[in-house]
């Protein structure tokens, strides 16, 4: 079954630093902006929610029609992993976020990477896609 999944890492000031369509549904132009809109709007909710809990995984915070936004907030609160997906198990999403977090930390460790800049590593990209296939 074709599924939608759009993964975005949003850094400080709501700048997306990594975007990937990881769903199996064929990529369409017209949904690309829709996904961005939904994810962008969900940031409002995340902003409120992030400070109310100590958990990093915020579960599903927002929905638009049948699309759900799940969010994982890293320790600095400014970097947020957002996944737009249709209904899926929470456990898989949680593991996905945790492993991506590890990858992201490795990116951060790179002395040549400036925090808050775009993640362009192709290794990171392939790894994220592999994780998406594994867990989502």
């Amino acid at each position, binding site marked *: 079954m074709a599924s939608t999944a759009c993964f975005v890492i949003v850094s400080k000031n*709501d*700048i*997306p630093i990594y975007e990937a369509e990881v769903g199996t549904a064929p990529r369409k*132009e017209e949904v*690309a*902006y829709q*996904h*961005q*809109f*939904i994810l*962008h*709007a*969900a*940031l*409002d*909710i995340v902003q*409120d929610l992030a400070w109310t809990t100590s958990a990093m995984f915020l579960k599903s915070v927002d929905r638009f029609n049948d699309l759900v936004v799940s969010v994982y907030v890293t320790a600095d609160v400014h970097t947020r992993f957002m996944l737009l997906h249709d209904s899926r198990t929470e456990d898989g999403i949680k593991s996905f976020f945790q492993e991506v977090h590890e990858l992201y930390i490795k990116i951060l460790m790179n002395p040549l990477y400036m925090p808050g800049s775009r993640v362009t590593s192709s290794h990171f990209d392939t790894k994220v896609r592999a994780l998406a296939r594994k867990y989502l």
Partner: protein
Amino acid sequence: MDPIRTYLGRLLLEEITPVVMVITTPLAEEACQKNGFSFVDMLLPFSLFPRIDVPVRTASDQPYRLQMFKLRLFHASNIRKQNYEAAEEHLKRVISDLNEKNPPDLLSEPPQLDTALTKSESDLCPGWIKTFNKELIRTVSFSEHESFDHPVACILVASSKDEEPINKFTDLFNMDQTPPLLNEGVMDPKMLKHYVLLHDNQDGSTENAASIFAEMRGTFGQYDCKMLCINSLREGDENNNEVMWLPYRNYGILDHGKTCCLNTDDLNQIREFMQDLTCNHIIPYMEQKIRILNQQVSTTRKGFRNQIKNLWWRKGKDDMPEAPDGPMYTFSSVESQIRLLGDYAFMLRDYELALSNYRLLSTDYKLDKAWKRYAGVQEMCALSYFMLDQSRKEAEYCMENAFATYLKVGSLAQRNATRCGLWWAEMLKARGQYKEASSVYTRVSNEEPTLHAAIMLEQASCCYLLSRPPMLRKYGFHLILAGNRYYMSDQKQHAIRAYRNALFVYRDNSWSYINDHVHFNIGRWYGSLGSLDVAIKHVLEILACGHQSQPTQNLFLNEFFHFVQSAGKRFDVHKLRLPTINMSSFKVIHEDHRTYASAADFDMQESVWRDLEEEMTPTASAPRANWLDTHPKSSLKTYDHCVCVAGEVVRVEIELKNPLQIPIPISGISLMCELSGNSDASTLDNGAASFAVDESTGHTESPVNRLMDGDDSSFNLSKHDLVLGGGETKRVKLKVTPKVEGILKIVGVRWTLSESVVGYRYFEVNTKKKTKAKKGARISSGKNLTLIVIKGISKLEGRIDGLPAKAFMGDLQLLNLKLRNTSESAVKNIKMKINHPRYLIPGNSRETDLSIPQCLGEKNAHEEERYNLTDNKDTYKNLLFSFSESNVVQGGETFSWPIWFHCGTPGKVSLLISIYYEMENSTSGMTYRTLRMHHILEVLPSLDASFVISPCPSKLKEYLVRMDIVNRASSESFSLHQLSCVGDKWAISTLPSCTDITSVQTVLAGQALSCFFKIQDLNGVTEGECTGHRSNMLMGTEGSREQLFDISKSPLIDFHYQERHHQDKLAKVSESLLDFILISKAIGSNFESEAGSSHQLLSHHMCHCSVTRKSLISWRMSVPYTIYHDFSSSICEVELHVDVLNCSPNQVNVQVSTFDYTPDTTENPSSDWSGASSLSTKQSGWSDISLENDIRVMSSPKKVQKYHKSTSESAPPFVWCGSSAIQLSLEPACAARVPLKVCVFAPGTYNLSNYELRWKDVEGLSGSSAGQGHPFYLTVLEGPHGKVTPV
């Protein structure tokens, strides 16, 4: 908060009020129409009583007062449920009417973040949305499941002109004018009736009417009848009563152009009538009805017994089939009566009573599964809670329940769900729960057609903005959703409005797809509405959409050009995004005293040039010892800033990138410059500063017009056209040529995209940074935008004709350096410096007209002065070549000079040539300039020759040479021409046995071959002996007319010294014997085009060739081989001698010792020589051998033992005479002769190898070593004495 004061409170007070049904006769209606409205309309202004103050007593005994009251008047024909289509039609009309009245303001600036946050709700949501909401709610009026729309009273109207008005009144109510619900039995037909006799004063006096009225009173009762006189206005009377109806314009009143004929008396009469109707009839009637109903309900339903009975009774109905609307309830059923009781109580604002009844009823309906009714009751419960301002949670729960239940019922109750949602949202808003309200609006929007959904979404977005803290991103998103729906329902203006309002949320964000979507749609819609300027402004934002797919990029671009074309005027766009300009690549190339042969030469680092020119240029100012030293004032002040020369081109290089996948044509790329005539350096900074200010304030006047075009005669600009392919990056070189002195400012760049849009961009230079870097301005950061233009001075342009980009190693060519003086005045004192004299050597003026290879020929040799070895020792350094003083290049003249070119080792070489010259008559500060030329040369491998020289075994001064040649070129073949030894000390000749080898002419690509030669050391050989020996050898076929080249002549020997110097560094050989030069010719045609001629010569220089030796010294026994001796007379004494040559660079002590036994060569053939053989293999590192030598020394006693052993077995047939050991000391490269004597006792052949040489390096570098004598066979024959056969 007081619920009455909230919007919802007021809405409920206005909308849930008693309904009065009006039935008129046609004649009565006609009388009203004279004023342009119906009877109902006429009463409309008087149906609202803001300060009525009526005491009311409902079920409880506590009276209370109503302050404000309203009646809703409807003509009987209107009291019917609207069907869906009609309602849609009505709402559409409402929206279009509202649009006409309040067109959205689309041309003002879109709102900003701070202004949007301070706005109140009414500002955010356009007012017409409220009106629309009301209309939307009204479409569900007169439904069968709610009774607050059921008429409480009925006004029957007949005209005084009607015949038999009394009968008319009775007929009116029984006719089919009555609403269908009444006939179906949903409404109670027993309602309050009021009879009105309408008299038109224009029809005559009231007498007739009065009589009818009296009759009416008799028939229908004293108090239920009323006579109204209208249209009593006479002509000429003042008339301003229309004002009364003005607030009701929306309903289409007064639009017929008819004048109002009502005078003040009429109005007062109507007002009194309505007041009387309300206070004395309707309200008391409702009070009474409430009391009766309450009584009934109490007896049937209240109390424990009734409840049990009710439950039991309801259970029995469980098995009845479920109708979509639930069971049918008539007005007389208990449920309807409870509902009516609740509604009446609600209308009279006894919310407690209403609530208790609604709650009672809701359980009943739930048990009956009458869902629509259940939902309706729940809705009213919630409203009652709200009006009582109690239990918010309960109210919300009821609302949610009602909403969900309506949705469950399906399409029949969809609009009800909408109404319920709207009330719910209003309720939440009244309590400040904006976030919840917006989600309700969103839910409502899902149930409505697109246009209504758009309006709902817009309200939702407003709520997000009003929530605390404001949820801007949700606000933006919902506005976009709303806008999208507006567009789908063909309301472009509203769509634009919605998108525009959302703009500030998405400003400057990096969510690319969002930006593209918003700007593209706004642009497109503006374009279709004809506001092309605004449309273009928005589409400009998205032109650089590299992340989009190609069709989308095409779409964006086409749309943009379409707008631009339809706008039909020129657009100047600051910071046009197509193409992208890479500012980090930005570079200004200007020539001050440093000039460049081509623009590419500028890329070289300044320090490289400065190192090269160090000795050549005069030092501009003495270097300061410390910072206290002031800079000498006299030093050229112009150099503090960047300087360029009038009339000379200033280049600006910039990178343009096309972010799209589609090619874009760009034309007319040129610089924008300013040239001010003031050359005073002090104004420079001020000028720059003022310009910066100018830029920050934003240019009001388009600077393109101000700064462009070379009509301004002070400078010229170049223009470029190009097409950038998809994703392509191109470097553009822009030029500006100042014509007069002054200060040139390079302001920006402009270009035309697709011949329709002019883009421009300023070069932003941080002024602070600039002042900081000012001291280092001479080191030119390449980013300086302000240049001082000085007066034109002379300039040389130079190039080297025929300098190839690729050449084979060893390639030798004569090139021509051409210098052209482009200016008027002459230049003098020309000097040149080359960084690689190994590759380029300036020739002699005599060689200008010569050509290769004739000039190298041997016959010219005597004409040239021979270079002395010592003179050229230093030439391997950087070559500073001064042209003679007489070489003055006049203005406009071209000066040429031969220059020799030779390729060294393969690889890439960058050749730097700097030419210094001075002005003949310099008026400006500049006295000299340098011309810098840079050339990158790729040297390809060609022939690779190596030599192995081994000493000739028979002669000490001769050597055998093996030359291994490998052609490493990929495809080129070479023919060997000449092999020469450098210097006079050597002679080269072919070996007599293999002359044919020299005839091998051609070495094909990849071929390897070996040739053997003999060389002879002419050192110490007298002049007479060396005749016939030559240091050159022609390698062509015998007898060919090939010309020998003189290697001791100018270019060859020069290059040879360069090569020698370079190979010196590489070679580790401590002893160098001689250098070879191999001259070959290229015969392939691969590089014909570049090389130019088939006579391409290559010279290969192999320097520091050394002899392969096995030991430090070489020796040879010299001989007679055969002697005749008469043994009868005596034993034979043979005089022998051993020639010893010291080949090492050091002094060596040698001991020659003889012993009289045969060495045991069979037993141990190689152990003796193992050291020596290893020596030969490692000849390059003699010092390493010492360890092995030590081992040998240690093992030598054992060896001696061996010799002794053999002595006992056989004695040699000859004996050494004389001293058994001779010691001598040899200077480096010296030979000595050691005399030896041997006694032979019988004829025979003797091996005279049993002698040994031991030698020791005096300086101890290679230790001591020993060597067994070479086998030497002496044959002694019986014969006459003294006959000796020499070799």
